[in-house]
């Protein structure tokens, strides 16, 4: 089953990066979400896979590693906060400029304010 999980991580990463390379805000945010999924699962499996071994003391003989789980639990919630912030930035950008392209326009040398 390790191969199945590894392929999921790989595919989610690839999809995430592909979407992040699009030129509009919405797909970039979706890409970021995919990448978060991949990273969260990656951290989770760093505790190695185990079945029927939930880390609830007293329910079995062996337990899955609880530490990566605790890390990922908070990471899931934080990635929601991050996605939400970027989302409002995307909305703000779109509403104030009238387009949702992420790159600066041609001719703009990328040093706004100088």
């Amino acid at each position: 089953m390790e191969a199945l999980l590894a392929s999921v991580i790989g595919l989610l990463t690839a999809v995430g990066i592909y979407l992040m390379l699009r030129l509009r805000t919405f797909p970039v945010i979706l890409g970021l979400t995919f990448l978060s999924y991949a990273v969260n699962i990656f951290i989770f499996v760093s505790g190695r896979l185990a079945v029927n071994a939930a880390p609830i003391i007293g329910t079995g003989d062996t337990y899955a590693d609880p530490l990566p789980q605790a890390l990922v639990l908070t990471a899931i919630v934080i990635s929601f906060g991050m996605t939400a912030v970027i989302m409002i930035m995307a909305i703000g950008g779109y509403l104030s400029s009238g387009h949702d392209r992420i790159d600066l326009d041609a001719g703009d040398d990328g040093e706004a304010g100088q």
Partner: protein
Amino acid sequence: MSLALIAVLPFLGALLPGLVIRAGRNACALATGAVTGLAFLLLVSHAPAVLRGEVIQTGIDWLPALGLNANLFLDGLGLLFAGLILGIGLLIILYARFYLAKADPMGQFYSYLLLFQGAMVGIVLSDNILLLLVFWELTSLSSFLLIGYWKHLPEGRQGARMALAVTGGGGLAMIAGMLILGNIAGSYDLTVILVQKDLIQSSDWYLPALILILLGAFTKSAQFPFHFWLPHAMAAPTPVSAYLHSATMVKAGLFLMARMWPVLAGTPEWFWIVSTTGLITMVMAAKIALFKDDLKALLAFSTVSHLGLVTMLLGFGTKAAATVAVFHIINHATFKATLFMTAGIVDHAVHTRDITRLGGLRRLMPITFGIALLASLSMAGIPPLNGFLSKELMLEEAAHTIWITPWAMGVLATIGALLSVAYSFRFLAHGFLGPVRQDYPQKPHDPGFGLWAAPGLLAVLVVVIGLFPMATAAWLVDVAASAVTASPVQVHIAHWHGLSVPALWMSLAAIGGGLVCLGAYPRLRAIWNAAPRPDAKRIFDGIVEPLAALSRLVTDGLHNGSFGRAVVLAVLAIAGAALWAFLGGSHAPGTRAVLPADPIVTGIWAILMIAALATPFLHRSRITALILTGVVGLLIAPLFMLFSAPDLALTQVSVEVVTILLMLLALHFLPKDTPAESPLPRRVRDGVIAGIAGVGIGALAYAMMTRGPAFTPISAFHLAQSKPGAGGTNAVNTIIVDFRGYDTFGEIIVLGIAALIIYALSESLLRNAEVTRRLAAQPRERESGDRHPMMLVVSTRVLLPMAMMVGVYIYLRGHNLPGGGFVAGLIFAIAYLMQYIASGYEWSQARQRFDHHVLIGWGVLIASLAGVGPWFFGLPFLTSGYQYVDLWPLEEFELASAAIFDLGVFLCVLGAVLLTLASLSRLALRTGERASTRAYDTEGHR
């Protein structure tokens, strides 16, 4: 502890001026003065003990593992410098009150000044060299703010930048030197280092450490060849020049050399490097000072020259010379701060500091002239003023020092003194003497008492120390010099040493020569003007600008404004590094036993892969892409469940619901489709890059899962201690609220901040006219005729209390079974969001009693209370405790303090999620969304 208070007071006090400035400028100056005055009094209260020869120590372990301890100590040298910093600081605060113009932000000025003062006091009181380095860098930073105080002046900004670059660079070198020194001595505590002279001087690393530390000291004290920054820093307001560039900051370098004197001095290397640098600086800067027309530039170079003098004396490495150095530090601080303040008064009154446009001020500004006369005669070394005493002692030391030849040092020191006489007299003669002119930019007049009080007081000191050195200064010199040389010093200062003393004749030669120089000034000036000389600023810019251009080239090459380009470069760089690491390692397959495939997992896997794979191809329809994302996210939850992570499964499901709702709401404002604008080659390129990353990560994950951990995981501790230590059987929850509670505390604060950012951004968007116009002009999509379907409205309202009950249950059981504050908060949030969906934002908002912000605030507050509470039992922050309670007729249950913390988590998560979605909903109202007003707004709206 009051020793620590001396160092901490200015930092705390730095908050005051900004607040008190509302009560007026006098109150502001008074508050600042009170802070400094209090610190000064504290210092004075320690003085008797220090004068008895005691060393006062205090300290707390800060990062003992790094050897970085907040240890402070006060000995004679520290007393002298801290006294100078705080005492002259008081006078500068008074002077600045009357110097700063109405338009200058005074609160800011005093805040910066106190920050600087705190950093300086920190340097001179530090017992730990790492702590000293921290304060050292703080002086560089705070002086940057002070030099650049007049932000509108380009010279101010450039001068500040140059000072920061030079002193900051020196500071970096010094860090390296101090680390080496600490390594040799085996401790970073000065009191330990200072007694290990033999060990340090016999070490192979002595010379590198010496050079690096001296680099820091020389740059700070503007010694040749780093002297060029000080005159440019004169763009600062005069109180800053008087404080930083005469009395304190530039003396930090001297302080450091004096502090390290017991262990670093006495070797030939020390003698040659330090005394030669000091000598060159003294003579060269004095020569430049003679030909400067700006009063402050003249004083700046004379300061450099006098700093050189002290450096040279320290470099001699003898006890007598070091004692003279200490005495001259005191004298220089008194007369030079006076002169700077006088220059500021002239500038204020005449509106120019150009000496060629001055002259004749003696009659027009008699008080100022009197003060300037005393101070500059002292600087020239005319008896019986204090400058004479230390200069005479210096010449005596120089005459007995063999440098290359027996007489070279004496001759050069005399030339330095001669030039010093010449520029001091020029300051007086060309500035104040001579006929009254008719063409001053503004008619000169003496200032009010407030402005001349501070220099006046210092001028009195100049005379008093000059007349009665044994009574007024010798005791301070004794303790300070004893600390510098680490041996008892009994100094005897006198005006007359008899005719056989070489210093007398050297002194007379200097005064005579100085007068000749002044007489022949026009001719000398012509020679000076004709001679070529390097422009330090041009050289500095010549070095800095290519470096800046290079870094700009690199930065622009990596970030040209295209996000995609940056991502591609990052992915390729990471993949390249991974490949390089992979090729360098062994490639045996993993040996860890693999789990056999399970049909349920395989089924989930298949759907997940199909949904993920379809996304890149279908993503241009954003709704479709969002649905596919939702499918992927929701399918991850059962995977967590099946691989023994029920807590993660619960969290993933609830977060996924909230995220998809958020994105749906966002899509309301954004275009519904992504246009096809990438050509096929670009899409292929992106696909290949994404594929490389995916294969790499997948392979890495597989390699990791098929191997055991490289280091023994620390989880065994958490599993073993979960029940006995934290009182809960859910190890994941106990880690979150107990073992790693501090991390979680930070995380909920981050989440709260994120929600507040979203609120603030949406708020500012609503204020933007362009945005509201675009919102109102949003194309209306075809909407469902049934706006708030009856079935949905009724069922969500019925579900609300049930969902809440589930939430409470999940929260309560979290410590022992899957659940907890995070999940409970999300469940509550979803229960509310259902109302938003079914009954509309306005309807729900009107029935809401608590502000979302308040929930976040309470959440953080309650979590903090759970953290602070243990303090009252003498336990560290966030220590948790638990107790089993047997309350009839209930079963025995557990009360854990972690539950309070988890309640904070719960509230914070709930508030953050609701605030986020409410912020977006508020935007939606501007699109012409009609609010429902009645309880059941069921009729179609079109």
